[in-house]
């Protein structure tokens, strides 16, 4: 049996197909990833984007729509996926996928483009408690992206640069607009870019950490979402949370889609 999860995020559409496994001697291995696909919708509207991403994913995986038994949608645009059989919030899908990938994880930190959140999950990947930013982008990936542009660095360079700094420059900003002003002031005062990058990522980590503290920091901590690709942020997050280790799953952008596909499989069971 094949099921699918589709994550309609604010910037990308991700699709994951799961296939039922029957591994002799390893009954805990029930599901394997049959295929995954990411698409940047550009100018497509939401309906078209969902359809195109799904069709492209099917093609890549070498399967047909008929073979997919259940499709569960997640993400901010989940209601736009007309062909989905049901939907699940990004909070529920993220936790489910994270614990599937790292079964020892108890605290899920999810930092995507639009939102940062902390989730406490149980051993089955079910959400016990959650907290997230609402009106402030300072704890979200989009903020780091915007600040990297201000420094004229790519996101990759931005993250790497911050690792070269050992300075702590407090950034008091609670809001991206004011934070950007602070960054501009730092640029004008000839502060090295790596120090500014670290200051920004420390600030994002601090905002995220405040949300995670609301649900309680219980190890293992796992980070999911686009910020997994930012090594500077990971370093800042460890410091803010006061932990030595943050688990980083494979295919981090797909965790919510994976969670949705798992829920699709369970719904079908």
């Amino acid at each position, binding site marked *: 049996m094949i099921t699918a999860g589709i994550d309609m995020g604010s910037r990308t559409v991700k699709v994951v197909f799961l296939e039922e496994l029957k591994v002799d001697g390893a009954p805990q291995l029930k599901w394997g990833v049959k295929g995954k696909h990411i698409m940047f919708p550009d100018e497509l509207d939401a309906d078209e984007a969902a359809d195109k991403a799904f069709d492209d994913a099917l093609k890549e995986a070498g399967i047909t729509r008929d073979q997919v038994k259940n499709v569960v949608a997640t993400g*901010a645009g989940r*209601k736009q996926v007309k062909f*989905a*059989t*049901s*939907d*699940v*919030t*990004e*909070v*529920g899908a993220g936790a489910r996928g994270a614990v599937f990938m790292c079964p020892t994880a108890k605290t899920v930190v999810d930092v995507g483009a639009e939102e940062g959140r902390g989730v406490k999950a149980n051993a089955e990947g*079910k*959400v*016990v*408690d*959650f*907290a*997230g930013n*609402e*009106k402030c982008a300072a704890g979200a990936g989009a903020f780091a992206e915007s600040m990297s542009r201000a420094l004229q660095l790519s996101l990759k360079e931005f993250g790497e640069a911050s690792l070269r700094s050992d300075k702590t420059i407090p950034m008091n900003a609670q809001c991206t607009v004011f934070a950007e002003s602070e960054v501009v002031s730092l640029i004008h005062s000839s502060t090295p870019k790596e120090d500014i990058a670290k200051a920004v990522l420390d600030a994002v980590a601090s905002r995220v950490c405040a949300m995670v503290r*609301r*649900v*309680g920091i219980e190890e293992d901590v796992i980070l999911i979402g686009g910020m997994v690709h930012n090594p500077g942020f990971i370093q800042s997050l460890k410091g803010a949370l006061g932990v030595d280790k943050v688990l980083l799953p494979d295919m981090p952008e797909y965790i919510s889609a994976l969670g949705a596909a798992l829920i699709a499989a369970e719904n079908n069971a």
Partner: protein
Amino acid sequence: MAKYPTEQLKCWKKAKELREQYYINFAKAHEKGGLRWSGSAWALDAIPAGLGNDVYSLTGEPYGATIAVDRKFNKECQDAAESYGYARDMCAYMRTYWGSIILNKYPFGGEFPKPDFNFQTQICCSHSKWYQAAAKLEDNTPTFFIDVSVGAYQDLTTERLDFVTNQGLEACEWLEKTTGRKFNDELFIEAVKNEMRSTSLWAAICAENKAKPAPLDEKTMYSLYVLATLSKSSKWCADFYQECLDEVKDRVARGIAAVPNERCRVMSDTQPPWGFLKVFRYLEEYGAVSIGSLYTFGLEGIWETKPDGTWGPRTLPWEKGIEMNTREEVMRLYCDWNLSKPQWQHFYDPRIKTEMMKTIIKEWGVDGVMLHLNRGCEGLSIGIMENRLGLAASGVPVMTFEGNMGDEREFDLGRTQSRVDSFMETLNLKRDTAHA
């Protein structure tokens, strides 16, 4: 997927009519030689009632909430207050009230009806400034403040009660001097008894919501509790609550539900974002009924712990054989009654509120709590994250959402619904409506 029978609350229409009449009475008070006064919903309104039966009030918070529903006029009021120089992060009701004075516009028609005096209690950090500033905007309206911030009721001492009582007695003299009217003790005592009836009866109504299915949902309760915030010491308010209690008891006896698909019970906290009460209807799509909150129950309801340990309406003094004859003894009982108000206790220690919330959770069978981090009201939001921690530590599922009871710029409906979706998932609930 209806599980229970439902029907509209019969007294709901009457509650709406009484509310509207209240605002009209205030505006027209001078036409018949009556008096107008203004103060908060927590003002000790039985005291001005001693001036006569033709004395009408305008309570500030319900006035702000009323305007909040009229989003266009609300925006005009907010803009007017901000243009005048008042900061956006101040109490939203207060800004609306000031805006209405500045614009000289009354939502029930005509100019803003300026009060003859302001009569206010102070416990919330905004309350005194509210009427101090209003008095200036109204060309120095005479204003009297009673400081009721003497600590939690559980720590009440004779001296603390004396402190409030003596201010109440001083107020009677101030009212005589200010209005030129003789203070009538009989009217005052009658008003105190009315207020005790109103607030005890409201608690009794809320206690009926312990029943499953809940006979009332919180959105409907807002249309009922508001009468106590307007005029708790009036006979019409007390009589209405008696009528309402009889009807709610009848609903419980017949198993009439507020939400026919009830399968989960939540409670909220603090004032809701008034312009977006549809959030409560959204909950119902999941079969979740909001059975009330400490705010709805205890803003005006007066409660006590019963001999069996449960929470119920506070027993009226005369039911316990207590004499209520002189101004002094009645004032003392009246102040004691108000100081026990549940919604006054968290100002001193959030743990008291957490314990009361846990009582509601246990006795009303609450499955989850939705805390409104209300940027519009510092007074009721103070300590709310401590409450969250306290509830979460005792294993209660809690969600928070940010907003403002009276300033829609600080509320995001889509994001709040999305958060509700996540919370409902944690409670294992699915929407009854087909997937869109």
